Each structure stands twice: as structure tokens, then as C-alpha cells.
């Protein structure tokens, strides 16, 4: 069978979500933000909620997510996405509202907004892309940076004595009663992507079914900030990030499913 005969519309088994615009992603080659943006678009499309969904874009590498997913968006000041989402959701309770945030955005400058939106049990969805670094500003240390990890503001490695230990904000959030679903996933292999998509879907369904806040952390790479090739970065992530940020569901249907 010739390749030409296989490449036919009726044989198509996977194509990019129609909710993605034709604009190329602004992310570096191999960046997990691209995969995560794709998954959000796929889930929204598959749930058929694109006419009712409003996204909140952060400050960080994904600030232009509104150029890539063809739905209504509000850009938010650095860290304030959960407050912006709260404002939208409170006046439009029947719409689906989600934030998409990096680790600097969500776990440093926006810790307060994140914790309080979660604690109020805002019926929103939070997608949290944790690459352990400030990608957009050129690879500075984040609260999530691993001990000993070199960044441009911890050039000799994160020294715990003076810079503290990485913040496991997802575990903190899982303890809050207002939060219904918490999961930590990754997008570096086909299997991981499929699981991550399921979790993102569950977090959106949680909102649609008015069960409370759904929160998905995606442990991701930052090839540029980590100064590695995409393949090497993913390997490094498996070896170093996953032991500290273990993958899997943490809270399902309001119940902790993992001992923390």
C-alpha cells in the first residue's frame, strides 16, 4: 500500500484540534506548554463547551495562549488569574472558566490568589504548568526549583539554607475543602499525554457538574531555561522532577486518594 493511498481524509485518525488557530505556538522547540495548550483545546472541543468557555491567560511563556486557542479570553496580571477567573465566574456562573498558569505565576506572586480561590471553592478549573523555573524572563529560580538546581538567579544551584525548599503547592491545595479534584500529570510521553488529557477533562467536568474546583498540575520542561535539548530535558525531568513531584491523582471527588 502506497503512502499516498493511506493519507486520505477517511483514514485520518488524529489531527490537531480545530479550536487551535493557525498561528504557530510561540514556545521553544519541545516545550510542554505547546502540548498542554493542545490538550486544553482538545478537551474543550471534545466536551463541546467552546461557546461557553472563557479562559484566563497568565503572565509567563503562555501569556499569548489566547492567540492559539480560539475562544474568549482575559489576560490577567502576573499571578492574579484565579482572582480574574473568580470575577468572571461569579457574574457568569453558567459559563466554564479556567486559568492556565505557570509556577512563578501560580506558586510565587499569585500564591494568595490561588489558595483563596481554591479555599472558597470557586467552581473553576486551574491548569498549572510547573517547569520549576521562570521561563519567560530567562530562567530565574522559582519557588518550585529543585534543591541544587542551577538557574540564572541560583547560578551555583538552589541552596536550601538561604533559598528554601521547593513549594509543593498542589499538595497544599489538595487539603482545601473547596477543591474537588487534584491531579499531577506530565506531557513528555504518549502515555503521559493521554493520562494528562484525562485529568484535564476530569477537572473541566468537575466544574460543569458544579462539584467545585478542579486543579491539574502538569510537571513540564523548560529546555531553554534548563539549557538542555528537549529530549535530554524530558529525561532530566523524569529523573529529577518526578521523584519530588510524583505523578498521579491526588484528590478525586473531594477525597484524597494519595497519602501526602
Amino acid at each position, binding site marked *: 500500500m502506497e503512502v499516498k493511498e493511506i493519507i486520505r481524509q477517511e483514514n485520518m485518525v488524529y489531527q490537531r484540534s480545530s479550536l487551535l488557530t493557525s498561528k504557530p505556538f510561540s514556545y521553544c522547540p519541545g516545550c510542554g506548554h505547546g502540548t498542554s495548550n493542545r490538550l486544553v483545546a482538545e478537551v474543550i472541543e471534545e466536551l463541546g463547551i*467552546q461557546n*461557553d468557555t*472563557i479562559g484566563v491567560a497568565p503572565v509567563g511563556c503562555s501569556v499569548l495562549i489566547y492567540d492559539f486557542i480560539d475562544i474568549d479570553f482575559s*489576560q*490577567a*496580571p502576573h499571578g492574579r488569574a484565579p482572582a*480574574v477567573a473568580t*470575577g468572571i465566574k461569579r457574574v457568569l456562573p453558567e459559563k466554564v472558566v479556567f486559568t492556565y498558569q505557570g509556577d512563578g505565576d501560580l506558586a510565587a506572586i499569585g500564591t*494568595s490568589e490561588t489558595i483563596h480561590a481554591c479555599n472558597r471553592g470557586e467552581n473553576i478549573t486551574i491548569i498549572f504548568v510547573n517547569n520549576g523555573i521562570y521561563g519567560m524572563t530567562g530562567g530565574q529560580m522559582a519557588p518550585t526549583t529543585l534543591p541544587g538546581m542551577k538557574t540564572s538567579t541560583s547560578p551555583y544551584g538552589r541552596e536550601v539554607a538561604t533559598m528554601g525548599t521547593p513549594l509543593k503547592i498542589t499538595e497544599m491545595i489538595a487539603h482545601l475543602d473547596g477543591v474537588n479534584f487534584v491531579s499531577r500529570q506530565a506531557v513528555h510521553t504518549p502515555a503521559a499525554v493521554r493520562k494528562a488529557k484525562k485529568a484535564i477533562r476530569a477537572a473541566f467536568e468537575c466544574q460543569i457538574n458544579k462539584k467545585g474546583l478542579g486543579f491539574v498540575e502538569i510537571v513540564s520542561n523548560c529546555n531553554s531555561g534548563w539549557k538542555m535539548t528537549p529530549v535530554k530535558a524530558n529525561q532530566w525531568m523524569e529523573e529529577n522532577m518526578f521523584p519530588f513531584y510524583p505523578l498521579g491523582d491526588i484528590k478525586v471527588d473531594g477525597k484524597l486518594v494519595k497519602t501526602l
Partner: protein
Amino acid sequence: MKEFLLMKGNEAIAEAAIRAGADAYFGYPITPQSEIMEYLMTEKATERTGMVVLQAESELAAINMVYGAAGTGKKVLTSSSSPGISLMQEGISYIAGAELPCVIINVVRAGPGLGTIQPSQADYFQSVKGGGHGDYRLIVLAPSSVQEMADFVPLAFDLAFKYRNPALILSDGVIGQMMEKVELFKPIPRTEQFDQSWVITGKTPDRKANVITSLDLEPLPMEKHNHHLQAKYKKMEDEEVRFEEIMCDDADYIMVAYGSSARICSKALQLARAKGVKVGLLRPITLFPFPKVRIAELAQRVKGMLSVELSAGQMVEDIRLAVNGKIPVEHYGRFGGMVHSPSEVLEAFEKIFIKN
């Protein structure tokens, strides 16, 4: 039938917000304005109109909730006092940049820093000069009575939606805490009465996706956006200036004062007139746009102007700009939480303009 009530300024604002058909209020407690949210909760604003009332975890969160909700085209407001407004400046800059309508109330207290809970007008600069980062302006209304506290809420919403710009009601602890008789306007239903083409309510197939943002990575479009904003502010300066004049027609001298200081000055003016000194009072109602054209006109025929503010002198700078050196313009005012009396104002006026 007219409805009169005896109310505190802060309560009047809160009642007016409900009656103006506000869709949401987000705030954080701070003296001397906590009665606003307390009133909304006590009077069950949500039950009365369906309005959302939410106590945020900080002013940062509150203003960003305002930003989010305002993007949906709803009538949204917040209130705070000086330190809280300082914290909100980031969000206000974003709201101005993204061109969203909303109403912000500042019941000013004295600073700098934590200052004191006593009244002040020292937030003039952070109100009329932008306040946060970037070239932007707020529409600033300065009520000087409890009646105006109520009336300026629907006015602020109208202006905010007309220009897609935040409108600030700049009050202070005197007006916020004072009790007066108010005639309340009839409730306006919560309806979406403005252009909704830009709002984020979910992209339907009949339109392009709407995006609320103040970002453009390219400087050239950003410059263009800034030109557009400046044109809008110019239009406000051409069309929205509001002020009140008391006995300016035959005046030799003009006092310029807004808000609570204008009330004090109107007494000082009576004392002056009783002595035969021809003083007039110009009370700016909009601090931005500032009545600079009128001030320049008056400067053609009066001998001097006194800016009377509960601050070390902020508005006086704008008066001087308008007067452009034609006549002497001086400042008088108690500050740091102290409030001048009419006789103190008159004494200062006489010392500056008459005795020399």
C-alpha cells in the same frame, strides 16, 4: 413619591450601588469605608437584585475580580481607602489599558504609609495622574455631600461605560462618615444596556473570539493603542468637565476646593463676604477631566487663587498649570488627618492675599 433617608455617606454609596443595578461588588475591609460592604451584606443586596457581593482576600484580589467581571460587560464596582487603593493600582492600570468600565470608590484617609484613619485628600495625585504604571487616566468624581455620594454612583457607571474606562469616586473620611438627608433615586434594573460587542461571555460561532488584554509585544501597535487612549482622554476633557461655582461672578479672589474641603470653604466664603472681601469658590466635581479652561478664564479677571486641600498641596499644581503664571496661586490646608476649619481657611487666605 420622593424617598428621603438620613444616611452616612458610605451607606448612601452602597445603597446607590444596589439601586444603580450594579452586578457585582468585590472589596476588602478598611477604615473609613468598611460600611460599604457591611451595608451591602446587611441589606442583602444579593437577595434584592441578584448582585454579587464578595469579600476578597486582599485589595489585589478584589481589583482583579473587578477586572475579570468587568470584562464580561457587567456593572462592577469596588471600594477601598488609600492604602488599599495603592495596592489596587496594578489592577487599575490593567483595567485602564484593557479599556474596561468599572467604578472604584476611594474614601481617602491620611498617609503616607499606614498613616491614620482620619480624613485626607492626599490621594489626589494617585487618582488624577493615573496612579499605576503607564499613560492612563481615570474619570475622577469628587462628591461633597452624602447626596452626591449616592448620585455619583450611577453617573460614574454611565461615564465608565460611555468611555470604557474606570471611573473613580474620590471621597474622604468626612463625607464617608457624615450623616445627611439624601433623596434616593428609583432603582434601575440590572440590565445590560451598553455595547456588548467586546465582552467575554463565550465565543459563539457568529463572532470572532474576544480577548481582554493590555498586552502587545510589538511597540508600534502599542503606541497606536496609547494614541487611542490619549484621544479618549482628550474627549473626556472636551465633554465631561463638571464643576460648581459659588459667587465667582464678582469675585476678586477664588478659592478652589473639592469634596469635604469645598464644604469648609463655602463657610469660609460666607465669613469673608461678611467682612466685605469678595471671594468666590470654584468646586471641581470632576478632578479628571479638570476644569482647567474655566480656571484659566477666571484667572483673566481675579487677583489670586487659593487651593484649599486636606493635603500638603496637590491640586494646586494643576491650578497653576491652568493659570500659567497669570496670577498668584497658593495652597492652604491641614493634613495628615487634620481638618481645617472655615476660620483657619479665612485666616490663611487673608494672610496670603490681603495683609501683604
